[in-house]
């Protein structure tokens, strides 16, 4: 592994780790944010209409 390879690896892994950590911190420390942040949530309104 070359020095430039090591730098690319550390920068890439470090950046995504810090970004993920920051997002978790932001969601958990902002009041009521856990109710406002969504992903792909499997219970969709059409299930209640016809299930």
């Amino acid at each position, binding site marked *: 592994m070359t020095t430039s390879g090591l730098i690319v690896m550390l920068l890439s892994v470090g950046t995504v780790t810090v*970004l993920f950590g920051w997002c978790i911190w932001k969601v958990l420390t902002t009041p009521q944010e856990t109710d406002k942040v969504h992903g792909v949530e499997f219970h969709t309104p059409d299930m209640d209409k016809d299930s």
Partner: protein
Amino acid sequence: MAVAGSAVGLGNFLRFPGLAAQYGGGAFMLAYAISFLIIGLPIGWAEWAMGRYAGSRGYNSCPGAFAAILNKRWAKYIGIIGVIVPVVIYMYYVFIESWCLGYAVKFWTGGIHLTSTEETVAMFKVMSGQIADGSALTPSWNAALPWLMIVFVFNFWLIYRGLSGGIEKMCNYGMPLLIVLALVVLARVMTLGAPDPAKPHDNVVNGLGYMWNPSKVQIERTQPATGENKVVEELVGAAAIATAEQKVAASGGTLKLVTITPWEQLKNPLLWMAAAAQIFFSLSVGFGVIIVYASYLQKKDDVVLSGLTASSANEFCEVALGGLITVPAAVAFLGLASVAGQGTFGLGFTVLPLVFAKMPFGAFFGGAFFFMLFLAAITSSISMLQPGIAFLEEAMNVGRKVSVTILSLLTTLGTGFVVYFTRELKALDTLDFWVGTFLIFILATIQIIVFGWHWGIERGLKEAHQGASIRIPAIFGVIMKWICPLFLLVIFGLTVLTSVFGFDLSTFTFGSASSYVVDLIGGTKDGKPVATNQAAQLSVALVIIVALFFGLLSARSKAYQRAEQGLPKNDA
């Protein structure tokens, strides 16, 4: 945790390492990082904002969203790309999902005793049916068929019965467990050293070098007949390069040692397209999935932080875990020469079982890892069904159960097709390129143009910022308006030029087209004629048939006619 859980899928641990290996590692990572910043994040945010807007007008499908935003008759036909992509990807995604389940159960029941690379490759070939067309349909626990039946029925049972909330709760515990298990596997991979003492060059450090070094070193031989240079061997590590120098010196000029800079590698538009498509695939951007799920959100919901959290969770799993595990382990076990030839999804299935075989309690950890992967895949495959369900409900004005039934029939036929044509995994690879790469690319390009140019950045960001606790940095306004669409159009144009017309950007001459194109229309490779491939042609025909079916339904939809007139769906 639900956001993170839904973001993680097979793309992180299987597709990403396979593509990185296929396109040479380090340079691919540079293209990938740039793609994440200038296309992944911005288009993701655009999709969240457009989906929520469409939902506020009562439209929950991609064609409905496009018709509601553009108010044009043709808009719904563009939107059907957002239905074709998830439905067709589902057709082959469940096949891969079934391998995960099969591997998990076989590990736990003691059915895997691997001692060599040849055994793991053979096991994967039997499971995936690469031996011959139709061999995956053999009624054997070593083949995919029984696992596929379980997976297929399980997916539709969950979605038909509306029990998917249960799987969501399972994922809340399962995803952190998957990350912990991935960290355990990572620790084992990093301490593998050189598994075969007879091949000291095949070690983890060289694997990391292959994955992350921006420059590539390789031995090339000039073909006397055509004058083309053919790669004989790729090299990583000072010892391997020193040995290669001696070999080249002794060859009498027939071989040469070549260093390819990242800039030379980045001239390949297919590399950029693959990197961009991987970003789209794993973030579910340009997929038609986010736009549908965002349509169920309210104005008070935070789509900016939702998009960023899902993307960052996904990138963490992909780069920090997937990027450090599979390719380094593959180089250590298979050697550099074999890594790039394992197919996009195959690398993880041939390499990871060997890693587990060489660690304490490997059967337990192997089973748990593949089961967690199966769980992650289930959440992704269910999310791929919703765009199709929402589309059929809207276009045909039917309830969810009818919609699910029609979709299950369609995907059963499609999956059956993929599972039959398994020789060299031709159907799967063809669909993954033309739909999982090419069509995603087209849809994402259209989405960002609609967001940046039809809506305009001011309106687009205003829609996105409703309910948001963070603001999208102003620089992304410029990226969304100019850089992102221009980048996508240039890459797309160059890919068509090089892949379809075989144009060589370094010599400005016309040569061989991409193998994906040659499979469809025939062509040449290394100066020799290559015939078309029937499985690849039928795969593209399948996509066209699905597109025509969806197009026909869209044309007859009353809901979409209202959307075209700028009316909300709910008054219908």
